[in-house]
């Protein structure tokens, strides 16, 4: 790691990561390099630390040991810049029940500094097959619909190199599942990086540039 000649400017380096939660070691000495165009697939049983690893990568959780680097810098060195490079969708859909689907997408985008207009948000929802939910309040949605609205943000996140998705295939029906796979593949093709945790066997297996982490 330290003697690597030149780091790819925007590759993600996880070095000797360890995670301890409640006095228990979830994983230890985990080193992974995620290059542009690659998929990081995190598998493991419940409670193995999949979510913790994803939260570590985006900087929400401090590693018990080890470091995470984005390009040549630690992700904590320029946190605000790093945050513009990623989109993180956690296991809760992060929607405000009192805002409509469209408003939720605009609000979430504005937090990461993106200027999302109402028509862009509506368009993203239409492309995700959720046009009819655009102006409905999110608290009326089913679990799957909430998940899909959260994922609709990906339609507007083409310029964010790093996608961090925690169990994105949960609660999705067959069509949405395939649509998400297509989105992920398109992102990888344009040189983006996707890190996702999933305990389901999904067709993403056809992608050859995969880094697998089994916790």
């Amino acid at each position: 790691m330290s003697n690597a000649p030149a780091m790819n400017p925007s590759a993600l380096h996880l070095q000797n990561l360890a995670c301890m939660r409640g006095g228990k070691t979830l994983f230890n000495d985990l080193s992974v390099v995620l290059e542009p165009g690659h998929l990081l697939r995190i598998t493991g049983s419940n409670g193995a630390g999949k979510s913790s690893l994803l939260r570590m990568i985006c900087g929400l959780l401090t590693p018990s040991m080890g470091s995470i680097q984005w390009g040549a810098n630690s992700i904590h060195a320029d946190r605000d810049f790093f945050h513009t490079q990623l989109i993180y969708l956690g296991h809760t859909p992060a929607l405000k029940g009192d805002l409509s689907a469209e408003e939720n997408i605009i609000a979430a985008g504005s937090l990461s500094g993106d200027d999302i207009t109402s028509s862009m948000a509506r368009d993203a929802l239409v492309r995700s097959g959720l046009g009819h939910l655009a102006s409905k309040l999110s608290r009326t949605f089913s679990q799957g619909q909430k998940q899909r609205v959260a994922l609709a943000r990906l339609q507007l996140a083409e310029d964010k190199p790093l996608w961090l998705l925690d169990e994105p295939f949960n609660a999705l029906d067959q069509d949405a599942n395939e649509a998400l796979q297509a989105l992920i593949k398109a992102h990888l093709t344009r040189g983006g990086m996707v890190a996702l945790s999933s305990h389901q066997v999904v067709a993403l297996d056809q992608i050859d540039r995969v880094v697998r982490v089994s916790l």
Partner: protein
Amino acid sequence: MSASLSIPKVMLAIVRRDLSLALRRKNDSLSALFFFVVVASLFPLGIGPEPTLLAKIAPGMLWIAALLAAMLSLGRLFADDFQDGTLDQLVLTAIPLPLAVLSKTAAHWISTGLVLTIASPILAIQFNLDSQSMGILLLSLLIGTPLLSLIGSIGAALTLATRGGGMLLSLLVLPLVIPVLIFGAGAVDAHQAGLPVDGHFYLLSAMLAIALFFAPIATAASLRIAVE
């Protein structure tokens, strides 16, 4: 998109989001307001209709009522975001977290502190306050209530991950806002005693300036711990 990142724009978007949430869930702001009105109305009922006595205790009573009403809504400042996962997105914001926190605190103040301040002259009438004292009370609340929101935001962030944090929040924040109470209520007292009130306002403003700078930093640090 991210090349044209404008910090004021993001801050404004956060304020706007929180205000529209507050508007759609009016009971939160309204219950704080009604609490303020009811508590302030209990004192004349309990103490008796003695105009001079009421006018004397009015500043303190109104200030304490405003303080308790502001406490009521503080618990929700980050708790809702924490529950639905939007707090993670807030911490992952592209602007410095203290500024994002400051925007949220500003929205909280507008939806509670400012509302209480505007309502206070009506209550002051119950206490037989003269119009000049009323003006000074209004001004002291205008400077003082943002302080309550700012100091309270630290407590709200610290008690976020604890169970039944509401009581803990009050125990944590109320002692910290004692100086605000002393100088806020003190300003009106001083005026009634015929003394100059400048000093009180200078001190309140100084506290506000310091809190504006330090409170968001402390709150941001607590939030980072809470999301872990």
